[in-house]
């Protein structure tokens, strides 16, 4: 299997989908400049630079999607999506419903986020929960090169608006990507490590932190299962619940702020539907309720690291260590 970086996997997915389906096109600020090879291959009409205007970029995508095209837009960094919220949420997310099903919105809105580039809170804001909370929208946030490729292809083929997040820190991480047509269905989590004692659920860069924590936990005799959600909406509730019902313990980990984050949703899901199987308190590890700092030292402190995940996992097991006193 060839080894690609995440950025290369994304490039491959886009190129393949442009080649496969004439209705696919891509635009955004600097898209044509940065993807000059695609312009040469597919023409200036299908790979376009835009003005600096995220609202109309996203609106144009929604309008085009509803009328026969399958646009992919690059909104650059997640905080810039604040300018696109009407188009994504009110138009792409709602106009299918509002119109009684007359339109569909096959479009993908890409954005980067996450700690790693010390660019500060106006470039780094893990706001994926906004879109999970909003109706009519799917949300993808992979962690491996293979999934970036396979899920982006699936997103482009999906008939719904998909917000596709790229954790910046993963861009240059390499991974094996299957040869040939590789499509990963939306809505399916991946169990990256099997375990019996505790379920670690995560997505994006903190998946690796969970795998590291699981390795460490193994040395302490704790068998941790690691689930990479990959798609945040639709959420693979079955995979999560099956695992928690088996292990009886749940730790959810992500970089986004805790309050009303994806971790809250998963913890709530377990408390509702796997309650009978729970053997200990649920734990969430998440970014603080604070904007992302720029300074490298602080930026790294923002992200839940493996050691903290180990501690959290152990704290769900009163038999291993005492449960911290509840305030």
């Amino acid at each position, binding site marked *: 299997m060839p080894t690609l970086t995440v950025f290369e996997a994304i490039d491959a997915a886009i190129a393949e989908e442009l080649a496969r389906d004439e*209705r696919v*096109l891509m635009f955004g600020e600097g898209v044509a400049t940065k993807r000059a090879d695609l312009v040469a291959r597919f023409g200036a*009409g*299908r790979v*376009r630079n*835009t*003005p600096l*205007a995220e*609202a*109309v970029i*996203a*609106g*144009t*995508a*929604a*309008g*085009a*999607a*509803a*009328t*026969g*095209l399958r*646009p992919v837009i690059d909104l650059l960094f997640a905080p810039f999506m604040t300018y696109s919220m*009407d*188009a994504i949420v*009110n*138009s792409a997310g709602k*106009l*299918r*419903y*509002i*119109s*009684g*099903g*007359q*339109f*569909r*919105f*096959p479009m993908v809105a890409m954005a980067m986020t996450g700690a790693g580039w010390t660019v500060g809170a106006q470039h780094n804001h893990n706001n994926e929960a906004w879109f999970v909370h909003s*109706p*009519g929208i*799917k949300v993808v946030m992979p962690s491996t090169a293979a999934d970036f490729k396979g899920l982006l292809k699936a997103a482009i083929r999906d*008939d*719904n608006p998909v917000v596709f997040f790229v954790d910046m820190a993963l861009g240059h991480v390499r991974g094996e990507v299957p040869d040939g047509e590789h499509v990963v269905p939306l809505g399916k989590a991946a169990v990256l490590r099997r375990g019996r004692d505790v379920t670690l659920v995560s997505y994006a860069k903190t998946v690796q932190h969970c795998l590291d924590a699981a390795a460490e936990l193994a040395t302490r005799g704790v068998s941790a299962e690691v689930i990479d959600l990959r798609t945040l909406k639709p959420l693979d509730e079955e995979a999560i619940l099956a695992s928690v019902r088996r292990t009886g313990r749940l730790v959810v980990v992500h970089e986004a702020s805790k309050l009303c984050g994806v971790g809250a949703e998963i913890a709530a899901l377990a408390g509702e539907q796997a309650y009978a199987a729970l053997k200990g308190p649920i734990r969430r590890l998440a970014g603080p309720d604070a904007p992302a700092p720029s300074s490298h030292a602080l930026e790294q402190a923002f992200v839940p690291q493996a050691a903290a995940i180990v501690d959290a996992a152990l704290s769900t097991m009163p038999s291993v260590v005492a449960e911290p006193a509840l305030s």
Partner: protein
Amino acid sequence: MNEAKTKALAHFERMHLIRAYEEKLVALQQAGTAAGTCTSVGQEAAAVGVVAALAPEDTILTNHRSAAHLLARGANPARMMAEVLGRATGYCKGKSGSLHISVKDLGVVLTSTIVGGELSLVTGVSLSKTMLHEPGITTVFFGDGASCEGIFHESLNLAALWKLPILYVAENNQWQAFVHRREAMAAEQVVAHAAPYGIPGRSVDGNDVEAVHAAARQAAEVVRTTQRPYLLEVLTYRLRGHFEPDDQAYVDREELARWQARDPIRLLADRLRERDGVEAHELALVAERARARIEDAAAFALASPMPDAAELTTDVYA
């Protein structure tokens, strides 16, 4: 009968249909049977004059104040009223209500009540037409208020750069909900913003349906031949309140009276009588026919069932 007269009579009938539709909804609202709506009373000439200038393959985007555009395009008032009343037989199965009725089959797509939403979507609709080699141009109706939203400019800039064949129609009705245009818009006219983008444009008396129609035909022709955007501003007036019920207490009585005297239906009636020699009772008959159609429409809507509870979660995902 000469062509101008035939056309004017057709306009007249359409305008009456719109007026009757809006007045019926006002009555239903006052009776507690219908929710409030944004009526297009006073703006019938703008809608009829422009829409009559479009071809069947042209596409239309509109906004919260869309009844006139829809009816001018030939939408069935019965299904529109059913939609307003939240019935399953409405164009959008009752999920829209009055504020965002789309009728894809008529080419009236993606109606949004977010002021400016239509302006953010129109570029994409036009792009599809162009890239998929579909015939026709795309027309977008928006208000003077929408021209104060930044998206108006983003849309114009993109349309100019990407050479999109869009007919922008600014319906400047002097009001932006409860704020007079003067208080909210530094430019005297919306059309002033077109030139810096290299977009041609003009403004026209929006209460004279024939003037609107001529201007719209010319504008559409420019869009068709240049395959580039054009901005047509239609100067008119919102004769009723923003959203029913609305006592218009905040409206300057004199200004309102001035525009009431220029009611587009009355202006056209006068012209039909004076220029074309149509008898008053003939005109009354037209009005009567329109009202009768609307009564039937209301009866249909009121007799229609509410949507099934299961519809709550259908049409969310494709």
